[in-house]
């Protein structure tokens, strides 16, 4: 179906179809957990795990599923992987699990995942779906990383808990609070679009 090369299939998720900056999908976790880099990272990885595995499953059993129960089945599949991720995090990284709280279960309804299953995995081969999921996940992790780095550095003066700003710096607490999340993402979106327009204009 798709005419892209495998490489392109992967790369598109990083920028051209970046789920956060370009498609505006999965914004809820993006905003909610990016106060700290470690949380952003954990969320990104958990989402990637779910995205990749459910893509694999969906693309391999897509033939059997009648369209009327498609969404219901996909949701159950996704939810299963989310529960697995949630449980494993609670078992092995209790602290992070506590920090992310109920946002991990929300991966189920993260628009990226269902969207990708519908848009891609249900129509493409297992291999392609895997690459696509990998690309999308990387794009998502990248976006979370950028956002959480800005917020953590400005908001508390640290990066992954390490002090990076000098003592002269007064942390901007707002950055790790809800308003800071919205403002940062809003401005980042503006910048992303500006860059996009500039490069397009050059072409």
């Amino acid at each position, binding site marked *: 179906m798709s005419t892209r090369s495998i490489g392109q299939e992967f790369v598109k998720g990083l920028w051209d179809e970046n789920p956060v900056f370009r498609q505006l999908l999965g914004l809820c976790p993006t905003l909610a957990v990016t*106060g700290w880099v470690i949380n952003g990272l954990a969320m990104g990885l958990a989402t990637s795990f779910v995205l990749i595995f459910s893509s694999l499953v969906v693309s391999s059993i897509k033939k059997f599923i009648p369209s009327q*129960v498609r969404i219901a089945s996909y949701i*159950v599949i996704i939810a*299963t992987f989310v*529960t697995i991720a949630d449980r494993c995090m*609670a*078992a*092995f990284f*209790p602290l992070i699990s506590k920090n992310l709280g109920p946002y991990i279960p929300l991966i189920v309804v993260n628009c990226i995942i269902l969207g990708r299953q519908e848009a891609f995995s249900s129509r493409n081969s297992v291999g392609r779906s895997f690459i696509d999921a990998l690309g999308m996940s990387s794009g998502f992790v990248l976006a979370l990383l950028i956002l959480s780095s800005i917020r953590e550095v400005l908001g508390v003066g640290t990066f992954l808990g390490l002090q990076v700003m000098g003592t002269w710096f007064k942390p901007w607490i707002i950055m790790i609070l809800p308003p800071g999340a919205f403002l940062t993402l809003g401005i980042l979106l503006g910048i992303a679009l500006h860059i996009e327009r500039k490069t397009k204009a050059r072409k």
Partner: protein
Amino acid sequence: MSLSARMIIVLTFVGLLSGSFLATVDLLTKERIELNRQREIEEAILQVVPGTHSSQKLYEEKDLTVYGGKDKKGILVGFAIQASGIGFQGKITLMLGTNPSIKKINSLKVIDQKETPGLGAKINDRESFLKFWDNKDCSNLLTLHKPAVKTQEELSHSEINTITGATISSEAVLNLVNSSLNRLRQLEKEGSLSSEEQDVN
């Protein structure tokens, strides 16, 4: 096969599969998760009631749990109270250790809070807040000292330090401590703190 049959079979099958998968995962992780949960409480008890070897849950009600800490010989070395109350933004849950006579606070530990990072969240910070609770005499009602100070010496006997800019959170902790101490004394008087309850370990 008709469409309806396929719909039913596929969805049910997916459901069954998911159920079995999750059951397996649960089996594999259940113990660890339970262990993590217990360890957190246990560690907290150990911290606020030093010398504890084993601990038991003595009493439980909404927003208040009392544990008893015993040394190797089974002698009560102190109470650990886990209490919750509303702070500036949300629930604050803390663990408070007292000596057996409830005259002195060993130390205070914050288990969960949703206060503003960098501000109210400093109730979880040793340097500016928690250290002032260590070995505090609590026979009298504790009060807050404003404005904030740097060292114990600047506080009077029954005074507790505030956090600059977070009076509400500091006060919330103080009130929570005062009220749970009162409740503890009352419970002890009533004799509800019998130690036959189940062992935590």
